[in-house]
């Protein structure tokens, strides 16, 4: 039974990494979707539409940290077009800056995760982290319609 579990787990890990390599566009879309779900939940709290919930906030920060780790690896030269991607060519033209922006988000999300313990610290720390989203979408993503 235990053996089976490990086998399945190993298979899942292999499958994920294969998917990441074979279809980076789908993987980065799924990654960003996860970030978006976290941000939407946090947005509800910020707008006062949902009560403050530390776990929700921490989960959102976690998804940002995870994305910051994996996203820079998901833009091989073969993934500039296709899959209805909204990634702009500028990503590959200034890849170093693109990667640096992800690193900044990762660092700030990690820092905020350590500092945010209650509603007051959430209000103080979260908005700055959220600003990173627009910072990248301004230059590197096509307009949404």
């Amino acid at each position, binding site marked *: 039974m235990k053996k089976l579990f490990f086998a399945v787990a190993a298979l899942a890990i292999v499958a994920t990494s294969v998917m990441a390599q074979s279809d980076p566009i789908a993987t980065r879309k799924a990654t960003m979707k996860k970030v978006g779900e976290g941000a*939407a939940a946090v947005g509800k709290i910020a707008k006062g539409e949902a009560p403050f919930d530390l776990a929700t906030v921490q989960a959102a920060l976690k998804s940002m940290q995870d994305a910051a780790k994996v996203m820079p690896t998901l833009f091989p030269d073969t993934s500039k077009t296709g899959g209805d991607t909204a990634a702009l060519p500028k990503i590959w033209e200034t890849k170093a800056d693109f990667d640096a922006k992800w690193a900044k988000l990762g660092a700030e999300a990690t820092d905020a995760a350590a500092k945010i313990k209650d509603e007051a610290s959430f209000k103080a720390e979260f908005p700055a982290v*959220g600003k990173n989203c627009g910072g990248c979408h301004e230059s590197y993503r096509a307009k949404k*319609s």
Partner: protein
Amino acid sequence: MRRLLIILVFLAGAAGAAFWTLTAPTPIVTDSLASALETGGDVEKGKAVFYAGGCAACHVSQGQPEGQEDRLKLGGGLELKSPFGSFYAPNISPHPTDGIGKWKVADLVNAMQGGVSPAGDHYFPAFPYTTYAHAKVEDIRDLMAFLRTLEPIPGKAPAHTVGFPFNVRRGLGLWKRLYLDHAPVAEEVARPLNWNRGKYLVEALGHCAECHSGRDFIGGVIEKYRFAGGPDLEGKDWVPNITQHKDGIADWSAKDIAYMLKTGDTPDGDSVGGSMTAVVRNMAELSDADREAIAAYIKSLPPREGPPKPPKKD
């Protein structure tokens, strides 16, 4: 034969004269009123007009370090691509020769509301005077008071690269006859005060419709596509429908709109990108009350279906 020639010459002359008359740039403020406008400008109120009008989004000095631009340096230079060619936002800092340091308030009113330069030429409507034409003259007077407090920046923006026939500025006189009206924003007494404030901010200053509308082949807003989005004039993307249509933002609350204008974050957890990020940087400077007013007005826009989209490329 000779008679025909005479008639033709006469007709050409008449057409020329008509074109000349119809396309004459007409300033809004006459000389006799100009001096009265020079006093009473309020810097603080002007600052609010500056952010509501989104001036910095286009006129900010280019080439500043990304992410830390000083948005009060208005040396211009931003390129606006369009099907007609490229426009470059001019220097509107108070520099005496490269900027607008020598302008009177009346010059700014004529520029923003008449689309006419101090030298008496038409401006291209890439400069959204079709919106500013609806603003209150006091607001422009206050705006000038604020602009005069800023740092003079040397340097001129590149010349526009617009092809024939659009480079014949005089022709813009005809364009203005079609698309420029000066009616003040009509107050609707049955609506709440903040809705009316929002209407003014959107229709006279914020110029949301300048990007979020479908346009015709000479660049005029198509009324049935007003606020309903359309192809980005820069040619790559699609500008979203912001009416209450199902393809628009019907599922956003007024609170969602106000929150997006402050943070850039959309209710689905995404954040706005492209040129809207610069818009949000300006909107974030407004008061909560003004953002809520804009939201109340946008939330009331009737549902409109936008122009047909091209099939998605893979």
